[in-house]
């Protein structure tokens, strides 16, 4: 029997303690998603707790014949969308992020490709994407889902997802192109 299915059945039978196993199993993925959506680790910490509480409240409505993570994601998604709108308007967020989006240092050839500055730049660029593009980008690149899995979870066609990924990549390429923003000129 699928482990998640067994856990859910146990919980619905009254073994609430089994829910901890579910929380610990899926917390990293949901936390990462929340962080990527909301742009703030602190907001993500609050959100993820609320998401798991909501999921528990509605656990009876979960169809145990299906996979658990897509259902959990739908609970998370609905909450995150509302929270995102509540926290800050997009324009304000865009202005703040763009004003803080500093190019990483490209001076030394030996600089690490995994520098913190670079990671921050990628993170902020993802946050700048509109939600319709950010969501499939996050699921594909940060949650390691395939196009078909994303399509199923978002109830969209694969072509639609591919199109959004294409547009997301295009925007990321533009945002992360620091060549024109570099303060140092080429000699």
């Amino acid at each position, binding site marked *: 029997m699928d482990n998640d299915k067994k856990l859910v059945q146990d919980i*619905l039978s*009254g073994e*609430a*303690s089994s*829910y*901890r196993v579910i*929380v*610990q199993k899926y*917390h*990293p993925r949901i*936390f*990462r998603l929340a*962080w*990527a959506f909301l742009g703030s680790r602190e907001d993500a*910490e609050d959100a*993820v*707790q609320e998401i*798991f*509480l*909501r*999921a*528990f*409240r*509605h656990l*009876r*409505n979960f169809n145990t014949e299906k996979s658990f993570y897509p259902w*959990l994601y739908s*609970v998370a998604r*609905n*909450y995150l969308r509302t929270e995102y709108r509540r926290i800050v308007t997009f324009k304000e967020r865009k202005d703040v992020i763009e004003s803080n989006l500093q*190019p*990483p240092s*490209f*001076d030394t*050839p*030996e600089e690490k*490709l*995994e520098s913190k500055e*670079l*990671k921050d*730049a*990628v*993170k902020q*660029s993802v946050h700048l994407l509109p939600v319709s593009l950010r969501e499939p980008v996050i699921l594909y690149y*940060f949650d*390691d889902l395939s196009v078909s899995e994303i399509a199923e979870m978002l109830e969209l066609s694969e072509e639609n997802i*591919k199109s959004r*990924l*294409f547009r997301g*990549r*295009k925007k*990321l*390429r533009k*945002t*992360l*192109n*620091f*060549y024109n923003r*570099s303060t140092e000129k*080429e000699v």
Partner: protein
Amino acid sequence: MMEDACTFIKSIIDSWETGGDPGEEAVLTLEQHLKECRNCRSRYLGLLPLIKEDREILQSIYPVRESDTDTAADAVMSALYRSTPERTESGKTKTRRILFAAAAAVIILFGGFSIGFYSANLRGNGRNEVLVRFELAAPDAASVQLVGDFTDWNEGSLELKDKNHDGVWEIEVRLKKGKTYTYNFVINGERWIPDPSSTKQVDDGFGGASTMLQL
């Protein structure tokens, strides 16, 4: 020569952008070139973890510590789990389950016709209203609220009462005839459940369900 290399690198990026898989060799070429060419580095370095689909780097962009998970699990379980330990005959402590209501009923009261043991007749006053009694059997709950579109989904405005101290919570609400309402019960201020006695449920937009009531 460098220009040719940069042109080739641009073609790799173009291919990736349109959804193509650059291939391992191209990615290695890209990586090496970015170490050597500052212009291309400033243009494309940020895309490299995405192009490589390097899970290690990508996950380090949003790092999650084990302690984060433990803390979250503690917080969730603490919020969920309200227990009143009681001794069983064997002496072991058994935690009662308060997490699921036993039963619920909505008793709809019409003038001259009642389901249940209470009736109300509002026809005489000219209002197009019915008195609706909502009941929920939740013996282990400390509080039960009724929340719905008729409360603007605000918690706290309609508190059910356990008048007989028998674990059955109830409230009567005047609602308009001919309208359709959706509602939930909220147990202990945190657990939202649809009415277990009704099969008419609708998606609440949060992955769960609300109960639909047609009058």
